[in-house]
């Protein structure tokens, strides 16, 4: 860089240069690395160290109060055969798949709808956004009241079908959780799709219209293929997100009734901070990290070399 710079500045640069302490120092290398150290230190201490720590703790016994003690593979053997945790894995798989099946098509169609230039659609889009303003705790509290069999929605509308004990019935609670997750997250994903649809060149639709393609044909032959990368990004976020749904379910059902909605993140919290088995909780955490990382990388590979990254670069 110094070579390319005008001679007047190179003199100044040379003067400003600190005494060389080895290769890699000096202006030619750009800003000094220590400008990045606050970010590195914070990220290292509170994210990287815990990431390593969770693996270490999965081999230790700790009740959350005293000092952790080495335990070998005990936690792993115990946790991987614990019926509660195995059930949590099954529920997590169900929640991941079903919530994707529900959210992905709804978000995509809503995104296409919101991308339309009609005035009423713009107004509706403003209102569709509202769930994103609420904290998960707030949403869960509101739905607990709304789904009350005696004083909630069912009673208000006089529809007995709706006046069920939604949250207290183990057969229904998981469906309630899936619906409320959708209520919270579909608005976010539909925004992604809205942005994706607006990126599609108008000329494609104009050409299709000239060829006499109808609305449905346009959707399947232009919109859907053009949204490929948005679908992959959104699906990755949905699937990895399924591994982090915690606060919503914690406040809505607490994992109950029984263990009917105790998915893995909740199982991790309850094992660690309610049963004081931090070692077991760390085992579950390691599983969550590995599965999350695996899904992200697999979907990233599926979408072609680092497509998600390069899509992010367009921000």
């Amino acid at each position, binding site marked *: 860089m110094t070579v390319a710079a005008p001679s007047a500045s190179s003199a100044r640069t040379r003067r400003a240069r600190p005494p060389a302490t080895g290769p890699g120092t000096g202006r030619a290398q750009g800003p000094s690395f220590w400008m990045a150290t606050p970010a590195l230190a914070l990220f290292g201490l509170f994210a990287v160290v815990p990431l390593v720590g969770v693996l270490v703790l999965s081999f230790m016994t700790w009740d959350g109060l005293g000092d952790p003690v080495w335990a070998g593979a005990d936690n792993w053997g115990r946790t991987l055969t614990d019926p509660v945790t195995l059930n949590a894995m099954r529920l997590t798989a169900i929640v991941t798949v079903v919530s994707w099946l529900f959210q992905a098509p709804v978000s995509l169609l809503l995104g296409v709808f919101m991308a339309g230039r009609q005035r009423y659609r713009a107004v509706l889009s403003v209102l569709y956004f509202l769930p994103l303003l609420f904290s998960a705790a707030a949403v869960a509290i509101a739905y607990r009241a709304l789904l009350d069999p005696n004083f909630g929605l069912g009673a208000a509308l006089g529809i007995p079908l709706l006046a069920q004990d939604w949250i207290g019935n183990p057969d229904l609670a998981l469906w309630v959780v899936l619906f409320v997750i959708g209520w919270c997250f579909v608005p976010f994903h539909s*925004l992604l799709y809205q942005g994706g649809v607006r990126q599609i060149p108008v000329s494609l639709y104009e050409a299709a219209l000239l060829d006499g393609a109808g609305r449905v044909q346009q959707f399947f032959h232009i919109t859907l293929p053009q949204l490929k990368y948005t679908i992959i990004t959104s699906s990755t976020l949905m699937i990895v997100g399924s591994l982090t749904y915690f606060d919503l379910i914690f406040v809505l059902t607490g994992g109950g009734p029984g263990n009917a909605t105790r998915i893995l993140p909740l199982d991790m919290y309850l094992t660690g901070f309610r049963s004081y088995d931090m070692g077991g909780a760390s085992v579950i955490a390691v599983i969550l990290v590995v599965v999350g990382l695996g899904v992200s990388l697999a979907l990233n590979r599926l979408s072609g070399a680092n497509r998600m990254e390069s899509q992010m670069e367009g921000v």
Partner: protein
Amino acid sequence: MPARVARAARPVPNVAGGLAGWLWLAVIIVPIYYIVVTSLRPQNDYYSENSLSWPSHPTLDAYREVLANDFLRYFGNSVFVTVVSVAAILTVSLMAAYVVVRSRRRAASRLFQVILLGIAIPIQATIVPVYYLIIQLGLYDTLWALVLPSIAFAIPLSVLILTNFLRDVPAELFESMKVDGAGEWRTLWSLALPLTRPAVVTVGVYNALQVWNGFLFPLVLTQSAETRVLPLSLWAFQGEFSLNVPAVLAAVVLSVLPILAAYVIGRRQLVSGLTAGFGK
């Protein structure tokens, strides 16, 4: 333009789409409407009136009850944690992004790769070691216990977005600052910051919402009422006022009001902030 003519000639309204759109609106609005009307209903009428009807005796009693129960302290705690975290996130992330973009060292690109990995990991899974760390640092049950991990967890996405934005600043601008004899700090504050303001706002809004609504850190890392933040206070209210549903929902409304105000004022920034880094 024949294509435009063809389009204008076929103004067939999409009836099915429109109907579905209004149906989804009902799904979104009914719960929100329910929260608002219930929060205005006197506690006694909650059990007798139709829960979706407009209250026959609307009252702000529920709000008074919530405000009388230390709500303002929890609100203040949330403001403190959010403001300090977001200010720190923006400062350290912008500095790191500046290094990633401007440094020619190989370590800088390696740093960027590590940070990208941080986005793919469900990082909440590290809550047990974070809890251990916070206890060891003597920060348990303080607001700093919420601030520090919130900053750390926000760094990957924030650095990514700011880096992508800084890359678009022409290198000549940086060079000419250097010609003028400006140091790296001056270049950062008087060139990089103003030019990336839209991205800084976006990152700020996104993280403010995340921290404001965060639940797991407060639940695990704080304990007493002195350090309680809003989302946790809603949960606590639900336990305390289990028979006073209007008061619980009034607390919900109060907790959303600041964000709603932000949405009304800066809808565009909030929308782009929320889809930050994922959409285009």
